[in-house]
């Protein structure tokens, strides 16, 4: 991989176009949908039609033929414009990637054109009540029964189950982890929303699989390649989660700087006080470092270097999660009382800005990963 610190003309044009679209909707749109219990369907549909959600789907299936770097740019710009969309992390990034890389021809024909246009949405379910950070302890099982599969167990904190056609479920088969496509209307599947204090149109759900019967082609790819397939999907997930975070962080930082330049309570703008200026400057550095690492991870992934991309994607996700938590915290502080007023649109980001420290993998688990894999330290758990 050659090092290039400027994005291509096309990538920059994509960012500008997505930013234009996103700012026409604005954070008010996102918040009003969330508070009304509705979805951001209009924005999703329009972004889909313009090919922004399908940038990374292969051209032969109607997609843009770009890479995860392009998709990450879309996610980041939408978040920056005030519409951070969790389902972008899941549907086009994890699910479309796994199916494009490992699906059978029939699965690709069935699902990829919809991902290309954004008309298909798919959730991803790995987390379980007794196996959060520890995915080796998954209790959800899938077994063959004649021509069919039978799925039993349960998941929690699964985003978007109420607005997708299917869920890509990680379950253990006799040979290890397997990825199953589970339609949301299949018999034996029930799901319930978890009450969350996040201002977001996208909800999280508990799912129960009560001997759900699935056709034999519900299995993605092959039964024994489950682990490799899983990891192929998790790198894009981390890159997208990092972009979701840096987009939100840039939004908060822009607002903080704008306010600090114009608000004046002692005759000079509050931004002239170093007590505010320095933390803002530190945060700007943190955000930019996270962005560079995210772009590195995307470039490695798009160059086919899965292993190197794994380390970078984890580091990027960690850095972005810390950056967004700091940026939103700081933006609220800079705004004083206005920071918590609905009008300024910062309080509504507060709990969302903490998602990135927890999901899809917590910062502690990333530190464990770096300690073990980068530093070769002994494992404590």
């Amino acid at each position, binding site marked *: 991989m050659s090092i290039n610190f400027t994005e291509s003309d*096309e990538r920059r*044009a994509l960012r500008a176009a997505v930013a234009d679209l996103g700012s026409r909707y604005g954070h008010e749109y996102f918040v009003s949908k969330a508070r009304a219990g509705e979805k951001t369907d209009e924005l999703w549909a329009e972004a889909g039609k313009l090919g922004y959600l*399908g940038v990374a789907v292969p051209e032969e299936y109607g997609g*843009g*033929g*770009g890479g995860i770097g392009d998709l990450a740019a879309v996610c980041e710009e939408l978040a920056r414009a005030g519409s951070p969309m969790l389902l972008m992390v899941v549907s086009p990034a994890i699910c479309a990637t796994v199916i494009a890389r490992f699906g059978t021809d029939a699965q690709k024909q069935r699902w990829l054109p919809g991902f290309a246009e954004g008309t298909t949405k798919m959730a991803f379910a790995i987390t379980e009540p007794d196996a959060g950070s520890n995915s080796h302890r998954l209790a959800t099982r899938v077994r063959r029964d004649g021509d069919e599969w039978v799925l039993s167990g349960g998941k929690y904190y699964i985003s978007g189950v109420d607005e997708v056609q299917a869920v890509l479920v990680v379950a253990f088969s006799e040979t290890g982890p397997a990825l199953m496509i589970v339609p949301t209307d299949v018999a034996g599947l029930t799901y319930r929303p978890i009450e969350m204090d996040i201002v977001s149109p996208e909800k999280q759900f508990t799912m129960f699989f009560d001997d759900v019967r699935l056709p034999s082609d519900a299995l993605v790819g092959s039964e024994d390649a489950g682990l490799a397939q899983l990891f192929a999907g998790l790198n894009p997930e981390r890159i997208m989660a990092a972009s979701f975070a840096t987009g939100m962080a840039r939004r908060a930082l822009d607002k903080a700087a704008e306010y600090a330049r114009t608000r004046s309570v002692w005759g000079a703008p509050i931004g002239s006080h170093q007590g505010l200026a320095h933390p803002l400057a530190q945060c700007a550095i943190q955000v930019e470092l996270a962005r560079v690492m995210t772009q590195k991870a995307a470039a490695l992934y798009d160059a086919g270097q899965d292993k190197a991309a794994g380390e970078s994607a984890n580091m990027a996700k960690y850095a972005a999660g810390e950056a967004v938590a700091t940026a939103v915290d700081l933006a609220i502080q800079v705004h004083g009382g206005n920071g918590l007023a609905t009008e300024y649109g910062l309080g509504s980001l507060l709990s969302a800005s903490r998602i990135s420290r927890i999901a899809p993998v917590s910062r502690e688990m990333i530190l464990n990963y770096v300690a073990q894999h980068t530093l070769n330290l002994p494992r404590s758990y």
Partner: protein
Amino acid sequence: MNIVVLVKQVPDTWSERKLTDADHTLDRESADAVLDEINERAVEEALLLKEAHGGEVTVIAMGPGRATDAIRKALSMGADKAVHVSDDALHGSDVIATAKVLAKAIGTVEGFDLVIAGNEATDGRAGAIPAILAEILGLPQVTQLRKVTVEGTTVKGERETEEGVAHLEASLPAIVSVTEKINEPRYPSFKGIMAAKKKPVTTLTVADLGVDAGEVGLGGAWSGVIEASPKPPRSAGQRIDDEGVGGSKIAEYLVGQKLI
């Protein structure tokens, strides 16, 4: 239909716009440069006409090297090809020189039926290019339109003014200019963005167009800026305390300013 759209790259209206100290021309380096929004609408209208009648859309831009960004934006929206007139000699050109150069550039597009321009650029704001072009090219002009249709060899348009709506028509080839009411421009799709790179852009100099370099640029301009100073800060507004008659006082003020 063979359509030509005239597109200009301008400093972003949101950024601070300045004149250079050296020659009082627009400081293009100090601000972000964008495809003028009115020209996005002009491109959109051309694309809609192309979708309805078939044909080809050519965009023409006169501007420095970085105007390629504005051109690429128009191509990513769906225009087919572009002509970029770029020449250091053009720096400081006035509205007449610009029209002369654009007229020659339009002449390089074989068999055009319709030229679409914006009614006024957000930076120079002369609002005269479409009319001057019509004069130079000897074509009918239908300007300031909020609606454009083409039927056979006739272009029809609606012009909205304070007096009412005028229905205008002219036979093709013709020049039209559009206002911001004309349409909502599309966003470039990802495929459009990727395709733009491969679309042909012909770059021409003043000499290529057979224009005398002495007629254009700062030297050839018919008017010159001798001095420029920034707009004085806004003075404090007039304050009306509401003691029961605030509403009528505001109305009085607005009437005095001929606003109502």
